[in-house]
């Protein structure tokens, strides 16, 4: 058994009822009025927090859902591992606390006229956590490794826009033929198959992170273990105890090590949501992965300061299987079912956490894209139900010829509740007797893919990058996740065109049109757009809500506690606004913030250039 005395000491010191971390006070636990509150944030002239308000011990404990499947950035796919990897590594680009793409290892870049060739100019003098210099060749090696068939990375799909990536993955081309070229020690070029406006965002994801060649070659598939892993991000891996915790400590060799205030981050895998909340309440955690679905009212009453809710880049919907009865060639029936779902009730009474009712596929919040909104979005539910009944009859169903359908979902409390609610609405409005079919996840995936037994099924998509294309491509004819059996050549053609289009505005118009086509074919039942919901220690600041739900620890810091009994500043938390949505100044005064002349060029060429 290897076990870390560090983690043990730390966890032990955070035991409720024993001496706790930091200033020796207990932040949490017990009834709400006993909890200590942070002092007010004071900023210095350079925008950084005043050291006087910072807690002595800068350790952050983050709940992290399931045990991460791997810390090899090129294999990692899950949300838990990507949270950790964002702290460990830095790609050519990286993200600001607001989730915007900013220069990372690359200081600046040029994009060619045809938007297919990216030239990256790397920062000089950067080093790995072991002190070795970080050069462009490291990235060439790493991208090649990620796409090497022998690596067998499923995350490599993210890199498919790179020229010849698909052929290399299939083993049809040598790895050297990838569209990646080394120009000099600090300059490299990536060539893409077509214009990909979100490509810079993709480079900030784990699969595009650099790994240290010597490190990988020395330890093989064991290189991601503590004591071995060499990384280039703000933190290094110091301890990993499976299903207990992962401890990262600050990397003194990181380019902005001075501005990273948190000295130590501990990621705790906690699968059970109620357990996670209980551990947060007893002071074991500063940041939860999520919160239980049913407890909105209760949490809002008891943990209003800590509860943080924010929009997320994801859509929740149910899909129709268009290849089987009763939905094959039956748009009236599908429309009737879509109309008779009362999204207001679903979001206000069932999910409750501020999810937004949705009537289309792409969630709001993507830069520059205004999602399609169908006509019925503006109707009252009464009108929708009325129209639904008309369409239902038109489709040939009535009391004498009732419809029986199956609603299929995978095991989850939330899916269950929503499926129940939808079934109940269909019964009340259209008199449909639906059967709920709850399947274990992998059985569910297989059934969905085979399109034989499914009728109406739970679907949804949370995007890895900030682009409508991520949502729309799922409905292309023959796409691996097109479990609906949808095929519309107009739709495919629009997406093809959008894939080639270099002008942002026109590209967005094409995608809007594609979304319109998709929604008028009634392929999915839009329900709501996702929100992230979690509890956060009010002492923990420096992070900001963003639609990607990416929160690198290096921007965070912990405030001191107010002495017990001192008056509470009134204005800080207005009753209606959740605490975290208030604007928080950036914690970093980035000296290397790109100056106007070195700043990245606009992602796509301007409109006038391309006629």
């Amino acid at each position, binding site marked *: *058994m290897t*076990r870390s005395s560090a*983690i*043990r000491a730390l*966890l*032990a010191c*955070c*035991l*409720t*009822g*024993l001496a706790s971390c930091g200033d020796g006070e*207990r932040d949490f*636990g*017990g009834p709400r009025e006993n909890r200590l509150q942070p002092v007010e944030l004071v900023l210095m002239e350079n925008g950084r927090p005043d050291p006087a308000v910072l807690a002595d011990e800068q350790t952050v404990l983050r709940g992290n859902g399931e*045990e991460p*499947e*791997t810390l*090899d950035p090129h294999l990692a*796919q899950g949300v838990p591992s990507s949270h950790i990897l964002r702290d460990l590594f830095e790609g050519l680009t990286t993200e600001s606390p607001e989730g915007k793409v900013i220069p990372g290892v690359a200081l600046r870049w040029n994009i060619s006229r045809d938007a297919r060739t990216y030239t990256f100019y790397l920062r000089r003098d950067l080093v790995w956590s072991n002190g070795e210099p970080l050069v462009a060749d490291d990235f060439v090696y790493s991208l090649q490794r990620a796409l090497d*068939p*022998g690596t*067998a*990375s*499923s995350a*490599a*799909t993210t890199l498919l826009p790179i020229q010849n990536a*698909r052929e290399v*993955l299939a*083993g049809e081309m040598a790895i050297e033929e990838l569209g990646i070229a080394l120009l000099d020690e600090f300059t490299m070029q990536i060539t893409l198959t077509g214009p990909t406006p979100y490509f810079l965002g993709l480079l900030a994801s784990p699969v595009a992170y650099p790994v240290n060649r010597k490190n990988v070659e020395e330890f093989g*598939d064991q290189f*991601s*273990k503590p004591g071995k892993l060499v990384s280039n991000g703000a933190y290094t891996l110091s301890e990993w*105890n*499976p*299903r*207990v*915790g992962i401890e990262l400590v600050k990397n003194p060799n990181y380019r902005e090590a001075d501005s990273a205030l948190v000295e130590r981050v501990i990621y*705790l*895998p*906690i*699968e*059970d949501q*109620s*357990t996670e909340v*209980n*551990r947060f*309440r*007893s002071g*074991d955690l500063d940041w939860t992965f999520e919160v239980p679905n049913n407890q909105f009212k209760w949490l809002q009453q008891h943990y209003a300061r800590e509860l943080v809710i924010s929009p997320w880049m994801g859509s929740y919907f149910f899909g129709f299987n268009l290849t089987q009865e009763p939905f094959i060639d039956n748009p009236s029936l599908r429309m009737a079912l879509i109309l008779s779902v009362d999204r207001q009730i679903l979001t206000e009474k069932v999910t409750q956490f501020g999810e937004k009712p949705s009537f289309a596929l792409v969630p709001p919040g993507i830069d520059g894209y205004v999602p399609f909104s169908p006509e019925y979005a503006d109707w009252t539910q009464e009108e929708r139900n009325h129209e639904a009944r008309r369409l239902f009859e038109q489709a040939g169903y009535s009391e004498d010829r009732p419809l029986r359908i199956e609603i299929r979902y995978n095991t989850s409390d939330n899916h269950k509740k929503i499926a129940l609610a939808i079934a109940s609405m269909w019964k009340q409005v259209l008199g449909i007797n639906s059967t709920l079919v709850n399947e*274990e*996840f*992998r*059985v569910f*995936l*297989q*059934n969905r893919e085979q399109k034989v037994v499914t009728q109406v099924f739970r679907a949804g998509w949370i995007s890895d990058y900030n682009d409508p294309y991520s949502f729309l491509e*799922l409905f292309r004819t023959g*796409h*691996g*996740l097109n479990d609906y059996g949808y095929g519309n050549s107009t739709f495919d053609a629009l997406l093809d065109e959008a894939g080639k289009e270099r002008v942002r505005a026109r590209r967005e118009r094409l995608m809007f049109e594609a979304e319109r086509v998709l929604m008028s074919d009634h392929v999915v039942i839009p329900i709501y757009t996702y929100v992230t919901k979690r509890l956060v220690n009010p002492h923990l600041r420096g992070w900001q809500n963003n639609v990607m739900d990416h929160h690198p620890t290096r921007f965070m810091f912990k405030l001191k506690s107010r002495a017990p009994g001192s008056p509470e500043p009134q204005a800080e938390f207005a009753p209606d606004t959740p605490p975290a949505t208030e604007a928080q100044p950036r914690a970093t005064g980035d000296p290397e913030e790109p100056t106007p002349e070195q700043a990245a060029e606009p992602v796509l060429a301007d409109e006038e250039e391309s006629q």
Partner: protein
Amino acid sequence: MIQEGILRHAATRLLGLIPTLLLLITIAFFMIRVAPGGPFDSEKVLPPEIRANLDAKYHLDEPLLQQYFRYLGQIMSGDFGPSFQYKDWTVNELIARGFPVSATVGGLAMLLAFVLGTLIGITAALKQNTATDYSVMGVAMLGISIPNFVIAPLLILGTAVYAGWLPAGGWDWSWQRMVLPVITLALPVIAYIARLTRGSMIEVLHSNYIRTARAKGLPERMVIRRHAFKPAILPVISYMGPATAALITGSVVIERIYSIPGLGSYFVQGALNRDYTLVMGVVIFYGIVIIVLNFIVDLIYAWLNPRIRYDEAS
């Protein structure tokens, strides 16, 4: 005589272990493969090229029988292979880290249950059909009348969240983090052991030799301790074999609610994630543990009950 018999019995038992394990491996191997879905299915896009690479890397593209023999060959050398789900860890590593945790919590729970259970059982038997009997047994029976996934969160709320005496979960080998899991795990076992002890104690107390001992004027405590205790716990001992095996290989409920890194979750997670190697590893490990424990139980039983001989037919 007894020594020799036990040795011979041990040898037969250990030899019998091999075909048992082989069958166990075969059944488990094909059962998990029959389950729909594979280890790399997810809700993400997985182009066929990548799928092929993954299958090739983990030999999933070979015919099933070939995979079976490959697996048999591999475990001959004591290697359970890499986990499909936790890619940085081998199954051996995961078991080596998980088992000590489960064994500690389970072992302590068994110890607690044995001590409390027999105490409650004997007390109830001595005061048979009195208020004491009904009340201690009634309390003990709570353990098998309320599911542990209700008891565990209640304990957390009471002792951790509100009182702040103990941590609400997690694992660091400190006693504070063991208290609640051990208690939760022990509760139903206490109830079973108490019932068993009560039943057999009553039976023993009415047997002739106890009557004789009493008639000889031996003090009651002496009668209980010297003569009644050993035979009375015999059924408890035979119950303890499989029960201990179940406890020390971990409980998914306890591990999930207290976030403890034991073995129990791997049975469930491994099966649900189709992590073929992991689930096979823990199943085989469990098989060995239960066979070994049953053997130990036999030995203890023989030691406690001298009427049993291993060497001759009666």
